[in-house]
């Protein structure tokens, strides 16, 4: 098992290397003038020429590439062309905000999707089941940015229940400033005992989480239902029932165990999907996360920032895939080839 993980990690490094290379060269073939952006639209030719040297753009592409790689190994992602700040710092600020969002969405999706799926399966072909399926299929199919806008219109502009956008009200920032400990807002507000900030932040998380969890929620309940239906036809379930064990126990103690593995795998993978979705919905919610950061960087062709985000995204994918594989591997029925038989 350990050997397997190690093997996967080494492959991961190669994948990352490949991603960096492709992104680097792609972002350099697109016609763009980073030096011009660096100095601003109205700069003189001398200023531009100076910027070209400062940014190393006067050197051949392969030298730029090797020096980029060298810096990257040291953890230096370069400097953003539009903001003039180190990309590493900008990523460090943005990543926790997105990770918190994605993680919470997945957690909610799991703990809501599972019971819905179980209930649907146990009431197979009733009106609840049909409605549940309809709802699952709908939330899977709806484009997230549309869901985001609808939620805003209904719950914010219409009912006034939740704030429209942002992560925290400015007024709270001024009256109860949040001390940064981990970079994760909810966690930080709890750790520092800042309840005003905590309450405010929570209210800002509701709509983005609802939006992001819609897809994994639909998926979880659909999958749970279909797998459970299969499992419920197995002999051991029939045997349990024959022993007179209560149906609730049959499902929640014996049947569900065969569902969890698959669902966990699916969720790990859909976390990757949720990460991609943040690229769209963070703009709608003005969320200070990695998605918003990428959207802006792409528009400005800010290539150090683009490569930085791409690296983070591919790293997340590699890790999430690894997690999914490990979950599968936890099933004692799965054996690795190097494990003997």
């Amino acid at each position, binding site marked *: 098992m350990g050997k397997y993980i190690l093997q996967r990690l080494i492959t991961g490094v190669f994948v990352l290397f490949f991603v960096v290379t492709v992104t680097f060269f792609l972002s350099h073939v697109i*016609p*763009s*003038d980073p030096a*011009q952006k660096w100095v*601003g*639209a*109205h*700069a*003189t*030719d001398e*200023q531009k020429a100076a910027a070209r040297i400062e940014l190393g753009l006067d050197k051949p592409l392969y030298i730029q590439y090797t020096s980029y790689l060298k810096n990257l190994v040291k953890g230096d992602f370069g400097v953003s062309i*539009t*903001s*003039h*700040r180190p990309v590493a710092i*900008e990523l460090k*600020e943005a990543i926790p905000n997105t990770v918190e969002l994605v993680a919470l969405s997945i957690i*909610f999706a799991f*703990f*809501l999707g*599972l*019971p819905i799926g179980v209930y649907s399966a146990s009431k197979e072909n009733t009106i609840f089941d049909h409605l549940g399926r309809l709802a699952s299929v709908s939330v899977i199919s709806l484009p997230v940015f549309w869901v985001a*806008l609808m939620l*805003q*219109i209904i719950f*914010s*502009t219409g009912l*006034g*229940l*939740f*704030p*429209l*956008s*942002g992560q925290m009200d*400015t*007024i709270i*920032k*001024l*009256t109860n400033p949040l001390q940064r400990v981990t970079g994760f807002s909810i966690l930080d507000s709890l750790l520092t005992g800042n309840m*005003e900030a905590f*309450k*405010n932040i*929570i*209210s800002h*998380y*509701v709509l983005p989480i609802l939006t992001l969890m819609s897809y994994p929620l639909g998926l979880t309940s659909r999958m749970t239902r279909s797998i459970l239906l299969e499992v419920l036809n197995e002999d051991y379930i029939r045997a349990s029932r024959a022993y007179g064990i209560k149906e609730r126990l049959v499902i*929640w*103690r014996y049947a*569900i165990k065969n569902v969890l593995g698959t669902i966990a795998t699916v969720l790990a993978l859909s976390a990757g999907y949720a990460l991609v979705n943040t690229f769209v919905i963070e*703009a*709608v*919610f*003005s969320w*200070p996360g990695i998605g*918003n*950061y990428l*959207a*802006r960087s792409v*528009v400005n*062709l800010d290539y150090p920032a683009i490569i930085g985000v791409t690296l983070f995204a591919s790293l997340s994918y590699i890790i999430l895939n690894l997690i999914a594989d490990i979950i599968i591997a936890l099933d004692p029925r799965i054996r690795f080839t190097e494990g003997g038989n």
Partner: protein
Amino acid sequence: MKMNMVKTIMISLLFFCMLAVSVYSSAPNATPTMVTYIAYADPMVFWDPAESWAAELIVLHNMYETLLRIDPLGNNKIMPVLAESWEESPDHLKWTFTLKKGVKFHSGKELTADIAARSIQRTIDNGKGASYVWDGVKEIKALDNNTIEFTLSRPLPMLYIVSSSYAAYIYNPEYDNDWYNKGNEDGTGPYKLNSYKKDSEVILQKFDDYWGGWPEDTMKFDYAIIKIVTESVTRRQMLMTGEADIVEQMPVEDIEALRSDKNITISKITSFQQLYAFLNTQKPPLDNKYIRQALSYLMPYEDIVKHVMLGNATQSRGVVPPTLWGHGEDVLQYNYNIEKANELLTKGGYPNGGFKLLYTYTAGDKNEQKVGELFKDALKKVNIDMEIRGMTVDSKYNLAKAPNPKDRQDITMLYWWPDNLDPSGYLFSQFHSEEKVGFNFGYYSNSDVDKLIDDAINVSGVSIDEATKKYIEAQRIIMDECPAIMVYCEDYLRPYRSNLKGYKDNPAYPNVVFFYDLSRE
């Protein structure tokens, strides 16, 4: 047991949700007053006031001040800010400005004429940003504690220069570029920087020692927030819910949709922003003047103003917008006229059209795109085909600056607005001969026009009337030769909450909201 854990977590999550719903209503007490302005992109890149030449001004003009401010909509009235009086020598080569007394920087330092002089000198020496506005200033010195003297090498319209929207800020020159660009400031403005979060918001806080004071009864704001919201639908909704007080930019459709909302007022002024369609005068068939004139007759101006801008623009007349000096009301204005266009096409040797043009615009700019589509339709009627190509700003410029003029586009779109209240930029940057392509995307070169523009610039320090005559003369020639089609001059539309008092849009300082003038009813 495992399942019990699942249940516990589920219940706690449910509790979490309920908490989230219940807490939103509880607001903190004793709240400071604040005004929120929504920008569509982070304005802050260059924090050094000597260097800033872009959107930073919406923040900088609240932290820093200029000697004077100008009101182009009020007959170019000059408003004293840091200078309270000024004088011009009879030979137009010396200007003295008397500064207000008791002005403090945010750092506590007192403003003196020496500091003001050194700050302007630093901007000039830096040579970055819009420092060129000071071109022609030979020497700046402090005569005493609050008198500053400018010695010029040629007469200049100094009142316009010291009230420029860029490069005219008075700041603390003791600090260097590094210090500023780390996100620091030291100005004399009514608001000082509280905090800044990249791509999220700039929080400004009132400066207690501001020379203008904070009278109790005026209800000025304690905080001014500039929030960055990229999504226009979100901007619109924030305004509707009151989360925002005023919005920098919004698509005209969104603004029209807000008209029915009683809580929202829409400010509308004629801006200095004009849209130009440059015609490549060095590539057939547009190297032919008659063909260019024909195209000028084929632009459907009325439809564009009505359907693209929903009435929030006026058709341009000449190069200079109507609210800026240098504009001529009797300069030729083309109108849509297919008969005349046909005549000119025949005269130019293309009686049946039959050629193809390439129209480039900045991808994402809906207005430029729609103008292109309407223009394409109009051209089709005379059998001219046009490809509309949306490009990133970079690639658009790269194509426009291709070494061989024949490789460049036929038509490209450009907006222009001034750095200070002077029409020279409109004419010099866009229509004066250039050795290397800058913004003259018509690649137009006419020695008569060059001379008129140069003369106008030189005489503008002595007599605005003389300069205006020359600028108008230059525009007459330009309109006849058509290196560009003058499309429209935009209105600045700015929706804001009706309970906000004191807001006045000043086109000399594009998009700037002077928060000190505002209060809530």
